[in-house]
């Protein structure tokens, strides 16, 4: 590490460096160190970086062209290459390893409101029937929502309810617990805990019953949810 390098002692405090620093005040870093600096800059930059920009960023007196040659050689044959893009430089994955990046292309899309609400109801109330889900959400449940959650492997059919019509119930799966980092569905925080953690919309303070807010006095349902 360069920290031990006696020529390198004054580099650290970044803010103190100024492009207008009088040149020659600091010794020019050794070429290996220049290479290190370029490596870091190219890695962290969102865009390819031009020679001019590199020269500006590195301490006065650095030989950017020379350091780039060293860096390019160092990465020859590696999983990542130093490549020239127009008159700028960038680090790029080796072309022969592009196939490794394929999973990177998964488009992450947030679950629809209907889906997340349905999932939440199943998690908190399982086993729960379709009719109960609809009752809680106040709208009918589209086929696609259940299909999607099933396909994702987050819900599955539970036992039939022993009531007239013997309706199917839904429960959450082990994959669901894995994904959300839960040991059991019982680890889901209750309403009161959410409120205390500030995670509920602040639609008024509890106790302000006469104002037109949605804050019911602590509802009894929650505690019953997880009793067997």
């Amino acid at each position, binding site marked *: 590490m360069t920290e031990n390098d006696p020529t390198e002692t004054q580099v650290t405090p970044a803010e103190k460096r100024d492009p207008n620093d009088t040149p020659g005040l600091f010794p020019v870093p050794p070429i290996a160190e220049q290479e290190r600096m370029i490596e870091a800059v190219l890695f962290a*930059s969102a865009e390819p970086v031009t020679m001019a920009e590199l020269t500006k960023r590195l301490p006065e007196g650095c030989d950017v062209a020379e350091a780039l040659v060293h860096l390019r050689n160092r990465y020859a044959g590696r999983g990542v290459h130093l490549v020239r893009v127009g008159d700028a430089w960038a680090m790029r994955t080796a072309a022969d390893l592009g196939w490794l990046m394929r999973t990177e292309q998964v488009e992450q899309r947030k679950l629809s409101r209907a889906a997340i609400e349905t999932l939440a109801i199943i998690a908190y109330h399982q086993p729960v029937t379709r009719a109960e889900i609809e009752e809680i959400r106040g709208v009918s449940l589209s086929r696609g929502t259940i299909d999607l959650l099933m396909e994702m492997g987050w819900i599955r059919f539970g036992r039939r309810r022993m009531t007239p019509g013997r309706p199917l119930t839904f429960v959450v799966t082990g994959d669901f617990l894995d994904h959300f980092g839960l040991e059991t569905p019982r680890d889901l925080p209750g309403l009161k805990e959410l409120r205390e953690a500030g995670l509920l919309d602040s639609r008024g303070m509890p106790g302000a019953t006469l104002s037109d807010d949605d804050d019911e*006095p602590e509802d009894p349902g929650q505690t019953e949810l997880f009793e067997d």
Partner: protein
Amino acid sequence: MTDAAPQTGDAIAARLDDEALIVDVDGYEGPLDLLLTLSRRQKVDLRKISVLQLAEQYLRFVEAARALRIELAADYLVMAAWLAFLKSRLLLPPDPTEEGPSAEDLAAHLAFQLERLEAMREASGRLMGRDRLGREFFARGAPETHAIEKRTQHTATLLELVQAYARLRTRDDFRPYAFDRTDIYPLETALERLRGMIGEAVNWSDLAGFLPPGWRLAGSRRRSALASTFAASLELAKQGRLDIQQSETFAPIRVRVRQDGRRDDRTQDPS
């Protein structure tokens, strides 16, 4: 200050310090924080701190605040009361008939709390002083994602999940597994709600104020809820739980809990 006794330079300095503390009281995060600041004056290791001396300093602080008519938050006063108690316990010979922890145990625990708070404070300073992502070290600026294979993956976080649930549950007065018809507010529900809330209506209150959230806007929902709530108020009046008043035709109906009407719910519920 009224203290006319000659004071040493130290005492004056201490007093000035106290006043500085008081002026700054908003800058303290509670009594423990203040105690920690005071304890630094003893210039000893927190493990060797004199809790008695600390209690005296704190009490002097509270007294000085009082003299300056600065209102201290309740927790500061609770701490003062506890420290006064601790001080007396520390000064008096132990009472063998007294149960519970000894004064020394309590004092030791306070010292532990202060030491722990200070340790956490130092730790947070060290933590924030570390090299940090986006400040001293950086992630790849241009992560590579060639668009070759597109597959939609739906995601959700636990936070989104629980917030979705909370949204549902706070949206309306939902009760699980009850099959209501929409826009009908049943009498039973109104009765239950009113019974729960009437105790707070010591003064005359507009009946409309007892409508459940989500049922208050004009329309069929409000009509249904108003009718049920009114019927419920009649029922409770019949049970002697509340009084009803209406000053003239179409004036707001007002209700109030009947002061002598507190009887056991179970004995009077006719159903």
